[in-house]
């Protein structure tokens, strides 16, 4: 069982290899990719940011839950951060199980929980030059420089730890 935020392309075949065991008869892989349109608007790319440390905790927690509910430890989850082109994978979940029903259910559980709970955000870029935070409404339609909150977060955490000591 492994979950990770990654800053490089996701290799689905690697994930399949990671969970392959002869005790399993079924493997389900889910891959989420950047779509060329969203709600009728032409998309040029997507920028993913996260509250990294918390996102990692939540992802690990979701895998623990799935492992208990669906009785397998052969699960791996990767979510990519940074700037992605059309068609690139933002998330991949591989689940292997002796039986296919539970493999499908575990896979579905993980992606639904991830979308509900894991603090990851995406800034959608459109071919007309505008950009929008998905799910947050059009807070700023002008193309402007993008903050990368997770980087500052790391700095802040260092500050906080220093303050506590």
């Amino acid at each position, binding site marked *: 069982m492994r979950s990770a935020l990654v800053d490089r392309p996701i290799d689905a075949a690697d994930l399949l290899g990671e969970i392959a065991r002869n005790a399993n008869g079924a493997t389900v892989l889910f891959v*989420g990719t950047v779509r060329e349109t969203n709600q009728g608007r032409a998309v040029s790319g997507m920028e*993913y*940011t*996260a*509250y990294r*440390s*918390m*996102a990692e*905790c939540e992802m690990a927690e979701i895998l623990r839950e799935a492992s208990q509910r669906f009785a397998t430890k052969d699960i791996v989850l990767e*979510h990519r951060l940074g700037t992605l082109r059309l068609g690139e994978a*933002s*998330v991949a979940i591989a689940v292997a199980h002796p039986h296919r029903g539970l493999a499908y259910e575990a896979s579905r559980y993980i*992606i639904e929980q*991830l*979308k*509900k*709970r*894991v*603090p*990851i*955000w*995406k*800034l959608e870029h459109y071919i007309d030059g505008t950009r929008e*935070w*998905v*799910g*947050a*409404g059009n*807070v*700023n339609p002008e193309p402007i420089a993008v*903050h990368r*909150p997770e980087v*500052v*977060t790391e700095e*802040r*955490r260092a*500050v*906080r730890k220093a*303050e*506590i000591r």
Partner: protein
Amino acid sequence: MNVTVLLFASYAESLGKTSLVMPLNTGDTVGDVVSRIRSLPGAGTLPVEPLVAVNERYAKRDRVLAAGDEVAIIPPVAGG
């Protein structure tokens, strides 16, 4: 006595910053900190009751904060 408040994505953009340090009174709750954040310039996009995490775990509005807590205001998540 302070808490660190982290802002992300659309909230960071609206408020023009990704974190701030905020003074804390004894007994202050998540709700108290959220109210103070909402009074800042640019905070118009923050809902009255945004999702909040304390020390990397989702927390309720009545959660009492302690010195050094990391309070994160979480915009609608959009992973996947």
